[in-house]
């Protein structure tokens, strides 16, 4: 299957900070020898390079629909990235210390796009509930939630609306410079570089991407049922864990 490799390599090596980076030993596919590689985690992509200063990655692991777990291995500080599906493999990696292993397992298990989306939706919901609460007559200074400008498509219809928030700088998918003025309350925008919607009004704050797009094939899903099931499985496991953590914090003493 073709990939836009040059873009992948760019993403791997460009200036944007990595979510984790370091040397790990990777067990070979056919032979069980471990090779030391330089690993870089960006978003949901785990790139690995032959050397730390290599100009291009030798491989990438897309961290969707996988489980990250400790594993039994002759090698110390070993852990595995396990995918479901009949054609999938398990990647066995080993860190150079206990601390490094824990750091990698933690960052890899939260690296998926789905996990990020889950958290974003939760926060969105919280913000919505809070805004609704304030607008419900507390006399707060928040703007009451207003209707969105109607979008030209059916894509937005099933989403709940957030109150109108101030105008924002137009942005593209990671094309624009990272905007630290986010502290001033500006959400990322989708209006494109220099763009606005037809009336020239500021766009409402964006909502996380959905998989559903209207084409003949129906909902966009993972290419195979087993991958899709695994995504759901992982999703619900993560939800259960989050809920558990949250309940523990409510009940027990603060750590």
């Amino acid at each position, binding site marked *: 299957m073709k990939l836009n490799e040059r*873009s992948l390599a760019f993403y791997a090596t460009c200036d944007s900070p990595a979510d984790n980076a370091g040397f790990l030993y990777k067990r070979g596919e056919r032979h069980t020898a471990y090779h030391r590689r330089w690993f870089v985690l960006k978003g949901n992509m785990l790139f690995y390079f032959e050397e730390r200063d290599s100009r291009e990655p030798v491989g990438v692991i897309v961290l969707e629909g996988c489980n990250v777990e400790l594993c039994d291995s002759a090698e110390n500080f070993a852990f595995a990235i396990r995918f479901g599906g009949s054609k999938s493999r398990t990647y066995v990696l080993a860190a150079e210390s206990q601390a490094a292993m824990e750091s990698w397992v933690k960052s890899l298990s939260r690296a998926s796009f789905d996990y990020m989306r889950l958290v974003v939706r939760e926060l969105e919901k919280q913000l919505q509930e809070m805004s609704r609460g304030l607008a419900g007559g507390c006399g707060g200074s928040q703007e009451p939630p207003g209707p969105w400008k109607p979008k030209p498509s059916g894509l937005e219809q099933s989403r709940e609306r957030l109150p109108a928030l101030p105008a924002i700088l137009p942005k593209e*998918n990671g094309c624009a410079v990272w905007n630290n003025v986010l502290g001033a309350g500006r959400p990322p925008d989708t209006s494109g570089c220099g763009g606005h919607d037809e009336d020239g009004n500021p766009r409402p704050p964006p909502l996380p991407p959905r998989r559903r797009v209207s084409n003949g094939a129906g909902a966009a899903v993972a290419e195979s049922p087993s991958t899709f099931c695994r995504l759901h499985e992982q999703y619900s496991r993560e939800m259960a864990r989050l809920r558990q953590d949250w309940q523990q914090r409510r009940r027990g003493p603060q750590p």
Partner: protein
Amino acid sequence: LPRVPAVLKKRLVKLVVNFLFYFRTDEAEPIGALLLEHCKITKEEENVFSISFIEEPERKYCFECATEEQCQEWVEALRRASYEFLRRSLIFYRNEIQKMTGKDPLEQYGISEEARFQLGAHRQ
């Protein structure tokens, strides 16, 4: 959803997380995929949009849709499809909630210290 290079080729296109997969219309396995990070989605003429990447901006992957409405939907969806976009959304919401409540909403999930969620962590 047709895809237009120099020659019009009909393809089935699926957006899954931050990848755009494309298939021949009668096949189950994708021919290829585009990683949607550091890319620019441009609305071109009627029914048409293009994707180009920051490291090769003159190369455009053009797509022609059946209707203008569909085209707008795709443009919207693709602009929000990157992991980096999602990250910025998360940081934005986190900050907004913190401003309103004085509390960090990520604490209850035990992820408030994660580097990837820090405000200003991803300076260019």
